[in-house]
């Protein structure tokens, strides 16, 4: 019996809602586990993104320098890369700051609305935010798109099962937002 395909999920600049929806698969997670080997995920305790991954679901937009580095590594180690959820596909809420620019948003958050009144400098401690939030497709090639905020558990199951079956998921009927 050939080895099961390797499935990974990653979480970049997003709210983790797509992963919550993924967990909503409930007992179907067991069915999925029968079809694929979940080799890397924020919900599994794995430190490094492995080589030779068949399918990776990427939640979230590319918002900081760590995301930028990680998505390139992930792309290099993945056969089929899926932009998973609206933040990965469109930028969504994560990219709302592109309307104002990074400085304006930080100033509003830390100088106007916080009690400290200053923007903290955490150089070297947390990754630097990019000037503009990018969609995954702006940085690396994306093979499939699964929009939704979040995509429903049903949509995720059908999409992943189709990919695992070696088929191309249909594009019609996918929906941004609800």
């Amino acid at each position, binding site marked *: 019996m050939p080895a099961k395909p390797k499935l990974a999920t990653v979480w970049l600049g997003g709210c983790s809602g797509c992963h919550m929806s993924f967990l909503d698969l409930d007992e179907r997670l067991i069915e999925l586990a029968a079809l694929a080997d979940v080799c890397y995920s924020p919900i599994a305790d794995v430190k490094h993104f492995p080589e030779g991954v068949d399918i990776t679901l990427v939640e979230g937009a590319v918002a900081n320098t760590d995301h*930028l580095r990680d998505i390139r590594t992930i792309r290099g180690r993945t056969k089929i890369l899926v932009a998973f959820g609206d933040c990965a596909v469109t930028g969504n809420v994560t990219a709302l700051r592109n309307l104002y620019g990074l400085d304006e948003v930080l100033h509003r958050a830390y100088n106007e609305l916080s009690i400290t009144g200053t923007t903290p400098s955490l150089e070297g401690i947390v990754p630097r935010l*990019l*000037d*503009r939030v*990018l969609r995954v497709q*702006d*940085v690396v090639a994306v093979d499939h798109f699964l929009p939704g905020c979040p995509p429903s558990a049903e949509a995720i199951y059908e999409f992943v099962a189709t990919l695992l079956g070696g088929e191309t998921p249909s594009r019609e009927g996918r929906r941004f937002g609800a």
Partner: protein
Amino acid sequence: MTAETLRQTRDAELERRKGIKNRIACCTVAGCESAGSGEVRAALEREAAAQGRAGEVEVRGTGCMGWCSRGPLVRCSSNDTIYAEVTPADAPALVSGDAGRFEGRALTTEHPFYAGQRRLILRNSGHADPERIADYIAQGGYQGLLKAVTAMTPPDIVAEVKRSRLRGRGGAGYPTGLKWELVARHPSTVSYVVCNADEGDPGAFMNRSVLEGDPHRVLEGMAIAGRAAGAEQGYIYARGESPLAIERIRTAIEQARREGLLGSRIFDSNFQFQIDLRIGAGAYVCGEETALIKSIEGKRGQPAPRPPYPPESGLWGHPTLINNVETFANIPAIIENGGDWFASIGTASSPGTKVFAVAGRVQRTGLVEVPIGTTLRTILSDICGGVPEGYEFKAAQTGGPAGGCIPAPFLDLPMDYDSLTRIGTMMGSGGLIVMDTSTCMVDVARFFMEFCMDESCGKCIPCRAGTVQMHSILERITRGEGSEADFWMLEELSALLREASLCGLGMAAPNPVLSTMRHFRGEYEAHVREHHCPAGHCPIHASEEVHS
């Protein structure tokens, strides 16, 4: 006015001129005005008085004499010579007839710039004062209208225009006679004649020069159209950016009304025709006929889907005959000399002459009128003196933002509607801009796309949002940040704009991109693959890893 008074006016003016030894005509059109022709004219007038020759020397304004880059131009009738780069200091010599000081600045009709041209539209330039109706009449003006009103029926006029095979000079080249016939045959009792003088292509000033230099020719053409189409009201829609042209049209309309050449009972007939001026306010899209109609009606100049076409439903829903300035300017001579005469000039499928506004990297720039079908090489090398020393020809751009470029291998292409369309550009209204090897063709495409983006009316999505996207892709490429995917995205957007836009502006907006991609694909690839601008124009910096 009657046939008799028209003749009398003409004879009186010719008689008056007999006493004048030298008629000095100063170009008073935009190009020479910028170069100071106003001061020259004033100096000439002063000098004529000072030398006591006011009776024998007459100083007048006149229309564009063509070689705008050497303006101000002044023509002396005594020796049929045009003097270039005239300054007020030249006035005494011009008035006294001392040609000695004009070494290298005296141009006769034998000069290659003039010898190679055939001037029908511009024939009065240098000869008539655009502000005097008597000058126009003395040159044979309003004879076409006289004939159309007194000796022809409306169907005769339409037949004559059809026989001439004149094609609309606004760009697309639709047969003028067919358009006239549609309006003339329409059963509606109310119809309109509209002159599209909203020439807005950057680098095009043919129509404006005609209006500034010979406005009565256009009025006469319109009145003949009114007679043919059964219309009693005409409108000239002029660009608000051309104050001089507006002034000249106003004056000409006023004069024609006073002389009874506009108004009721023209030439003692039942034909009546009025012309009113409408002034645009800075919207290129108003050159599109349905948008122009909206603008005359006092609305946002947004195009409407065609059909219905204006000959069926135009101004206030009535049949409307719309032609551009140069088309109307061709009409008087066609009526006077016959359609067959006109059809014998130019090529079989595109008869007549075309005025080109030549600009850019050639020795002589300005207005050039040649028979249609003259090769680009003849215009650029023989008439315009070729590309200056030290520069190398790369391409000529025609048709403005709706057109494309003609690269060196096509220099022997005849300049007619169909040949230009075949190689992916168009005649347009006559802008002809010469580019040398230091011009980047990707940047040229970006420049025209920016123009279309700024001028898009915003009504239909493909044009409003598509020009923005195409412009941003082209900008990325000129910054050296383009990708291979940008090529097919440009092509896909081009197809959408061409096929799905509501009006001609959106449909034609991709043309400069498609044309430069067709003839200069290598330049695009160099920007994208090698981050290098072969013309050395685009400031491409060492590419960063992420461009956000």
